[in-house]
């Protein structure tokens, strides 16, 4: 409470010069943090990849190559140089967008990532929207009715989402909603009939098709998306609701909540107007982390639904010792986490005045 004020003379204004300097130092420290995180991330993945006894030369030339061809490739890859130099070469290449070539797809890794990430992005985004739109209100209601029937119902439904394996839910979902009822489309991102019709701009089919005004494809893509996204959404919903519930229970025992009721607010009005805005900071953290882990790609869901996303791509690369692809995927996942942390930090300041300025 160093900036407390007595009697109305309040020290909240500052001179603009000091504010500009403050802003500059904040931006500077942010860029530094970003660079340090990036260097750390790439260093760890790079050196781990070099510790594995996979021969990157053999992966390129094949085991029938002559020893001369092998040596040429060895030199071309710069493997004769010290490890630390190799790392800096790798880092410089990354900065120019050169992630190397994937052995498995024989495409540049960057092109691969630009193809698979939008598929995961589409899935994860719809899933987190479901998780937040349903999970947050469910958690608030459960917390505010702690121990009574609405709480019990929400907790049981949440526990089910927590404990049932996703592949089982995926298969049953496909069997019921696709196989029996025919309400949704089957596996993959689009019916074969529609594939390749829409020009790729963002790679997110819903957006690309909407940009062309092709609503038939939007509908078909949505019909493919809704089941896997719904299942992933159910999982994040269960987690988000559980956390929201416990955050709310903390707030409802606070004095300001009682004060809000003394003023004449109804219980539910006090819950939504007073307690709920106070759980925003931890809630943003939980939602951010859920979203980030969804964007990593959900291997099981992507496998069951033949969804060509990031999780499937990295897993396949791992099984085939496709090191460039694994490294590229890891850097992308790291970048996703850094971005989400950054956005969360900005949202914290919007949600809580105590975190703004000073």
């Amino acid at each position: 409470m160093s900036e407390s004020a007595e009697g109305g003379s309040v020290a909240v204004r500052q001179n603009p010069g000091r504010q500009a300097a403050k802003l500059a130092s904040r931006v500077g420290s942010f860029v530094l943090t970003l660079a340090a995180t990036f260097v750390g991330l790439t260093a760890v993945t790079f050196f781990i990849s070099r510790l594995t006894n996979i021969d990157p030369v053999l992966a390129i030339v094949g085991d029938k190559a002559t020893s001369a061809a092998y040596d040429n490739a060895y030199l071309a890859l710069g493997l004769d140089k010290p490890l630390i130099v190799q790392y800096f070469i790798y880092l410089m290449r990354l900065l120019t967008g050169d992630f190397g070539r994937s052995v498995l797809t024989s495409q540049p890794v960057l092109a691969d990532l630009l193809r698979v990430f939008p598929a995961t992005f589409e899935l994860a985004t719809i899933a987190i929207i479901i998780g937040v739109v349903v999970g947050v209100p469910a958690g608030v209601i459960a917390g505010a009715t702690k121990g009574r029937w609405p709480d019990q119902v929400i907790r049981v439904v949440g526990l089910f989402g927590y404990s049932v394996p996703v592949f089982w839910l995926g298969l049953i979902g496909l069997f019921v909603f696709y196989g029996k009822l025919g309400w949704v489309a089957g596996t993959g991102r689009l019916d074969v009939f529609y594939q390749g019709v829409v020009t790729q701009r963002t790679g997110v089919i819903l957006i690309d098709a909407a940009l062309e005004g092709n609503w038939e494809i939007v509908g078909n893509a949505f019909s493919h998306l809704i089941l896997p996204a719904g299942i992933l959404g159910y999982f994040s919903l269960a987690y988000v609701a559980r956390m929201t519930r416990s955050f709310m229970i903390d707030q409802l025992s606070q004095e300001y909540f009682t004060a809000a009721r003394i003023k004449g607010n109804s219980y539910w009005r006090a819950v939504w107007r007073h307690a709920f805005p106070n759980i925003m900071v931890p809630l943003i953290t939980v939602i951010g982390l859920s979203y980030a882990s969804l964007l990593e790609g959900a291997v099981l869901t992507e496998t069951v639904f033949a969804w060509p996303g990031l999780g499937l791509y990295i897993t396949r690369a791992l099984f085939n010792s496709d090191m460039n692809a694994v490294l590229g995927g890891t850097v992308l996942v790291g970048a996703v986490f850094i971005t989400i942390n950054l956005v969360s930090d900005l949202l914290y300041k919007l949600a809580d005045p105590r975190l703004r300025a000073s």
Partner: protein
Amino acid sequence: MSAPLLTVEDLEVSFPGRTGFTRAVRNASFTLGRERLGIVGESGSGKTTMGRALLGLLPRTAQVTARTMSYDGTNLLTCTERDWQKLRGRRLSMVMQDPKYSLNPVMRVGRQIAETALLHLRTDRGDAKRRTLAMLEAVQIRDPELVYRLYPHQLSGGMGQRIMIAMMLIAEPDLLIADEPTSALDVTVQNEVLRILDDLVRVRGMGLVMISHNLTMVSSFCDRVLIMYAGRIVEECAASELQNAKHPYTQALIAATPSLDVRRTELATVTRDPEWLK
């Protein structure tokens, strides 16, 4: 004095626990007009619980019974949640102990005060804001327009408590319960806040229940004092007569207050007699 504002007869509050019920308030009876009533007692004597019972704000598990508990013709025992909402803030209100915890940290204080007006008075946002600014002036905030836009963490304790008073008095209730309204404040601002509270209560002709453990403050500030011990009202007397209190507990409390004039090496303590409990 005309018909009392508040009548309480045989109020009992108990909480279920592992070893049976804990009786937090036992057999409490008192009446209150448009006067200042002090309720004094040590921690855990049931003062706060009694205050919250009068607002219908005890936890769900609490069991409240009474022969009579009525406020200005309204039977509080049969109030529905909706009835309570009309009473709280508008007819009877409460100033809580520590503004650091009792103000909503993420809402501007102006909006917190205006909310009470919007809940009870037929008014719009603009008028609620005007009333809020007037109320801020009434609690002697020097720059109401500025303070209106501040968040609670930008206020000192004394300012915070004046905001609290403004928030609880803006809808002009007839009875205010003040639950240790100054014990979280610095000694230097305690008197200032008390004076503001005193002025407002006097000018508006309200009833006041002052819950405290500060005997000196209560005896100088209130007309009548109730002494509580272990959930019971053990003594009731005029504040001016407090020095002549008959109950041994009250006498012990008074004796435990050190005097500046008499040099002492050892402070008096309260020796409890199980007899006090019946």
